[in-house]
Structure formats: C-alpha cells, structure tokens
C-alpha cells in the first residue's frame, strides 16, 4: 500500500476530488498548509513596515491506495491539479506498512 501526498493550489480541490472519484478513489484527507517554493509571494505593507509574504496557501491531499493503483492516482491528481503556472505543487509517494479502518477493524486493502 502506498500513500500519495499532494500539495496543490487551493481552488483545484474540487477538480482533484472529482478526478479521484472518477477512478474509483472514494476517500481522502485534506489539510490546509502553506507552501514555500519558486512561486513568488507578494508584499504586504502595514503602516510603513513591508513584509515579503513568501508562504502561500496550499492544500495537502493525502490518499492511501493499493500499490497497484499508484500511477493512476498520481496521474489523475497531476492532470486535475495542473494549471501550468508556477506553484502548481508536488506529489510525493511513500509506502505504508499497514492500514486500519477504525469503525470495523478491517485492515490493509479492506480498510481503504
């Protein structure tokens, strides 16, 4: 099993969710995060003090999937989240040893 973690632009959430639903992924977890990268922030000025705001709002999406479907999932997220503009975000994939559904106690594949 793998966990796919994607950092995306906030307004792309609905499209990504739809894309995942489209390929049969029906569970995911979203976190509001702030990203720092190549995309430039902006300057905010408060009473004479200028601050370069370099952390931009992003969303982190985490989806646990069976190892076999990782490519499909990454592909789906990547194309739904893409605008072609700088700051579109990243996708990281890592392995998970185990998964449990709390309600039923089901594990691994059944837990997703």
């Amino acid at each position, binding site marked *: 099993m793998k966990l796919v973690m994607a950092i995306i632009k906030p307004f792309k959430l609905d499209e990504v969710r739809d894309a995942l639903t489209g390929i049969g992924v029906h569970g995911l977890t979203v976190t509001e995060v702030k990203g720092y990268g190549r995309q430039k922030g902006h300057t905010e000025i*408060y009473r*004479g003090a200028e601050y370069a705001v370099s952390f931009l709002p992003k969303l982190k999406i985490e989806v646990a999937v069976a190892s076999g479907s990782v490519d499909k999932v990454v592909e789906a997220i990547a194309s739904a989240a893409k605008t072609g503009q700088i700051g579109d975000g990243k996708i990281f994939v890592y392995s998970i040893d185990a998964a449990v559904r709390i309600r039923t106690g089901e594990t691994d594949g059944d837990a997703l």
Partner: protein
Amino acid sequence: MKLGSVLRWGAPALAAGLLVAASAYAQDAAAPAAAAAPAAPTPNKGDTTWMLVSTVLVLLMTIPGLALFYGGLVRTKNMLSVLMQVTVIACMVMIIWVVYGYSLAFTDGGGLNSFVGGFSKAFLAGVDVTTTVETFSRGVVIPELVFVCFQMTFAAITPALIVGAFAERIKFSALLLFIALWVTFIYFPIAHMVWWWPGPEFASTNPADATVAGAGLSWSFGAIDFAGGTVVHINAGITALVGALVLGKRVGYGKDLMAPHSLTMTLIGAGLLWVGWFGFNAGSNLEANGYAALAMINTFVATAAAALAWMFVEWMAKGHPSLLGVASGAVAGLVAVTPAAGFAGPMGSVVLGLVVGVICFVACTSIKNALGYDDSLDVFGVHGVGGIVGAIATGILVNPALGGAGVVDYTLDGGAGTAGAYDLATQVIAQCKGVLLTVVWSGVGSFILYKIVDVLIGLRVTEEKEREGLDITEHGERAYNM
C-alpha cells in the same frame, strides 16, 4: 450662541480695555448655575437629551470601538490582552473620576487653581439631580450629572488610547498602576488647565481680568480647542511616544511578520470610533444648536478627506490602496478635527483632513522607520502628530474669512455670543503655547511615572511570556478557540 471667545492677551495691543475673555474651550461648563442668583435657568430637555446621547456615544467609541480598533491590529496571541487593557482602564478611571477626578478637574483649586482643581466635589459631594452647569451660551444650562458623565467618558478613553504604544509587551499590573497615576498627575491637571474657567454668566458681567484670573493656565493663554485636541489627543500621543521609547521594541520587531490579526475588527473599531466621535465632538458643544451641527459636518468631512488622502498617497507610494491606510487616515482626520470641530467651516475641514491624512501617513511610515521606535499601533503618529496639526490649524481655520465660526467675546452685547476680532498671528501663537504646555507636562510627567512604575513592579513581561503572547500568560485565556 457660540462657544467661547478668548482673551487674546498674548497680543498686548488687543488686551486693552474692553476685550474680555470667555471660554476658549468647548467643554468648559464650569460654574454651577447655582451661582446665578436671580432666576436659575432650567435645562432644556433637548439639550439634556443631546448630552445623554453624546455620553453614550463616547462609551461606544471606547468599548467596543477602540478596543476592536486596537485589538484587530495586534497578533492573535495578544488580542485578548488589548481588549482587556482598554476595558479595564476605562472601568478603573470611571471609579477614580467620581471619587476625585471630577473634583480635581472641575472645581476651583484655590492657590493651585492655575494648575489643578481641589477636592470640594470629591465623591461628587454636592452634585445631585438639581444642580446644573453652564454651557457656552449665557443662560443655557444642563444638569450637572450629565456633564459629570460626559466628561467621565473623556477621562476614560484618553488613557485607553495610550495602550496602543506598548501593546503586546506591557505587564498588566504595571499598566493599571501607571494609568491610575497618569490620570491623577497628568490628565486631571491638564483638563483643569485647559477647560476650567468662570463661565459665560461671569464673563458677561465681569471685566476680562477677573475672568482670566479664575481660569486654568492653558485657558488663559487664549488658545481654543473645541473638543479636546490637547487634553485628549496630544496628551495621549506624547505619553505614548515616551512609553514606546521607555519600554523598547517588541521582541522580533522589524524581523517577524507582525501583521494585524484581523483588519475586520479594526474596521469595525474604526467605524464605531467615527460614529462615537460625533458624541465627542458635537457633544462638546454642550447644546443642541447650529454649532453642534457645524461640529457634526466637520467631523464628517475632515474624516472622509483624511481617509481618502491617506489612501491616495499610499496608492501612489506603495502601489495599493489599503484598508489599514483608510482606517488610519480616518482616525487621523477625526483627531485633527477635534479641536477645530465647532470653529472651522466645512471647507476648511476638508482641507484640514486632506493635509493631516498626508502628514500622518508620512509620520507613520517614513518617520517612524527613520527614528526606529516601536509605537506598536502608531498612537504618536496618529494622535500626537494629528493632534498637533489640528490644534495649530484650528487657530487658522477659525478665521471667519476662511469660513470659520470666529470666537465669541462675551463682553460684547451682554454675552449674546458675538464674535470678537481675529488676528492670525495672535491666535496661532496662543495655539502653540497651549500645545507646548501639554507636550511638556505630558512628556516629562509620564516619563517620571513610567520610571516609578518600572522600579516598583517592572513595565515589561519576560521575553518568554512576550513570545507566547500576553493572552495566555497574563490572562490565562485565548481570544479565539475556533
């Protein structure tokens, strides 16, 4: 019908003979009408209502107005501490006011009368539902208790203005002690020096010298100040500057992002300040007549003009018109028009607003950065600088030739409210003397008081507490648990 003329004794040529002083300040309503023997005037209920309402409006300015305006500008972790400081200061000063504050400000001080009043009305002795005080029109009075309330709100908001200077780092107990001392040694005396005089009845029926002899020091300079530009704004602004210097910068100042945690709250606060300020300015007329209306329109247009001026200058200088700029400009306009409210004409007020918007913008951005002090919420830049601009401009804009209302000379026409002669230099010099007196008394006095409190209990919280935020460390609460 109007406010009060001045004995322009700064100008010897004019001081000769018939020129008799009268009120210089809109809020003097000193001598209880009881003094007027023949037929004691009765309050007009329209006036009484207007003063009741004005009093309520000034409370609205303070809580929640000022609390939100300031609170929105600090970081989340200090929000609650600012709300707390403003609220508790206001409550504490209200109690002090009825115990001895009103008496120190608005009674005859005997030998010290040039500087401060006495204790004859401590605990509001002798003040009841039947006593009255004079307004600025001969023969027009309001219930004394209304005047006590109205002035109480001024005494309550002024020290609360100061907290902006050292927000996010002061110890709560030290703040309370400092403010208790400050109102006693700085505010009540200045209020007395600026606002205490023998009143229209006396001034209309006595020679000028007698009137002047019975007035506070600053009043006797002949400076005019409609609603408290010196007593409230310059006073608070200077104390704030001294405070910012004495306490030093916040940890992380100039390095960490200290963006306002909620400009929404700041805007609510600014709106309520504006709304309440009509009580402050137009209420200072003490009477519901055309001059109250004049003070009202000036308080509208100077504010609007200053907000726009700040916005456009910022737009040009920094590329964006910001809400913080508009709100700051509006407050700068309100501050500047305070001394001028019942004296300037509407067009003069527009010009005043435009000018002060630009000047305060420069003060709060370039000058503060250049000098490097950390006046957290720009109390000096807005109230101090704006107050001084307004006080001096009032001396110019009162000129009837510029659409101003002129200054009443009570010795003319039996005190009917006729304006006296106007001389630019005389008036501006008088204004400057009034400003200077306030700056010196406030600056020196507050410096001493800060030092005393620092020795007694220490002014600042520890760095660790400052980092964690005053909300949790000083008050054991957070503003938000969302």
